[in-house]
């Protein structure tokens, strides 16, 4: 081809260029195809990255919002029952914009991942207090009446500590040290921690990282089972139920991640994402 392609997430996963109207029309065609199949809710992955601009971080650009509004409009006139979920794991003030900046009705996505609540819940687990959780939720911008949250403890991705530095300050912590503590806690490097997470995407300069692990392993069930410690097992089960008690009562749609309902532990031998050759996938016999 002799040209450049942008691949934000993986070498085999090419980013689309919505500068080309044919790309947009093709994507609308795909969304409407699924609407025709009867899909009630369509999840739009990584919406923050829709639009690229040289010299910027190419996240949360205004054009990304315009594209989503246009997608919503196209759906409104043809399949008005279809809802969109925004998967935008970004700062609270940015997340809220994916509902569409309007008074009541969502102009973009009706549902958004509540990544803020997710990260704050983990902060409460590590610190054993709700100082930052309370502050972070108080400072969560209010959302539209006709939009709702997808509340979750963890999901398909790693856990990013995406809360506001200002809130960390207000809770009485030093942001850099606090983030470092959380990473140490969930990777089990902190003495008092039973967590068995792995750091992911470590930024050598800032020491920032994300945390990878299943719910059960992050709250100490794996360590407790290995130690055959009934009290520690009880504790881990309590925390699993406590966290679900929060996402089930917060307001919105609770998302239970597969495996967490039986306390599934980390599976260390699996690579994080398996590259999939398309040719190989097409030739392979169907898995049963």
């Amino acid at each position, binding site marked *: 081809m002799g040209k450049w392609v942008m691949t934000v997430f993986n070498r085999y996963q090419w980013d689309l260029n919505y500068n080309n109207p044919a790309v947009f029309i093709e994507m609308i065609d795909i969304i409407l195809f699924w609407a025709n199949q009867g899909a009630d809710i369509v999840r739009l992955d990584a919406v923050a990255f829709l639009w690229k601009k040289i010299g910027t971080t190419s996240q949360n650009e205004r054009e990304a919002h315009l594209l989503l509004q246009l997608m919503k409009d196209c759906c409104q006139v043809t399949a008005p029952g279809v809802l969109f979920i925004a998967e935008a794991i970004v700062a609270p003030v940015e997340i809220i914009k994916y509902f569409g900046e309007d008074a009541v009705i969502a102009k973009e996505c009706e549902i958004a991942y509540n990544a803020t609540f997710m990260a704050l819940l983990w902060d409460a*687990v590590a610190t054993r*207090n*709700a100082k930052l959780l309370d502050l972070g939720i*108080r400072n969560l911008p*209010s959302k539209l009446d006709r939009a709702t949250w997808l509340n979750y403890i963890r999901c398909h991705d790693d856990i990013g500590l995406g809360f506001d530095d200002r809130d960390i300050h207000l809770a009485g912590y030093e942001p850099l040290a606090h983030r470092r503590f959380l990473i140490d806690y969930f990777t089990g490097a902190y003495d008092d921690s039973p967590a068995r997470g792995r750091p992911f995407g470590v930024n050598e300069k800032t020491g920032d990282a994300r945390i990878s692990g299943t719910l059960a392993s992050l709250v100490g069930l794996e360590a407790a089972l290995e130690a055959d410690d009934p009290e520690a097992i009880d504790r881990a089960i309590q925390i699993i139920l406590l966290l679900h008690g929060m996402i089930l009562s917060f307001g919105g749609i609770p998302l239970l991640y597969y495996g967490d309902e039986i306390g599934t532990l980390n599976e260390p031998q*699996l690579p*994080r994402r398996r590259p999939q050759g398309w040719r190989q996938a097409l030739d392979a016999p169907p898995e049963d």
Partner: protein
Amino acid sequence: MHRPKIDWERAEQRHQRNSVEQRIFDGLKKMIEVRKTIPAFADFNNRELIATANPHLFAFWRTHPVHANAAILVVANFDASPRHLNLKELGNRGMFQYAQVTDLVSGEQPALFQEQLVIPPYSFYWLTDQQVAAL
């Protein structure tokens, strides 16, 4: 690592009384069942955080848009020790002041110690001050 293959043998353990799998699975099922019976849990932007004196507690109201007495008090204790919530801190709504409160998940009336509600370690309550018929 965090996207594991489903272990069907472990999944079967959820039928084994007192197994780890059973305690989590049935605990979640119960919460889901109870949640469905609580109208105030529907999202009408009807959540109000409660400023408690105890930093280990996370507490909020879920109010009902029409019926004031259908409000639910959600309170969680993230600490390893039991923590107390002063019911008088809840403001002057007149709710949860006199009546005995009931946790909708367990159906039990949690312990009160000198007008303070006791929340055990790593526990939460979904509280009502209304009479509850057994679920």
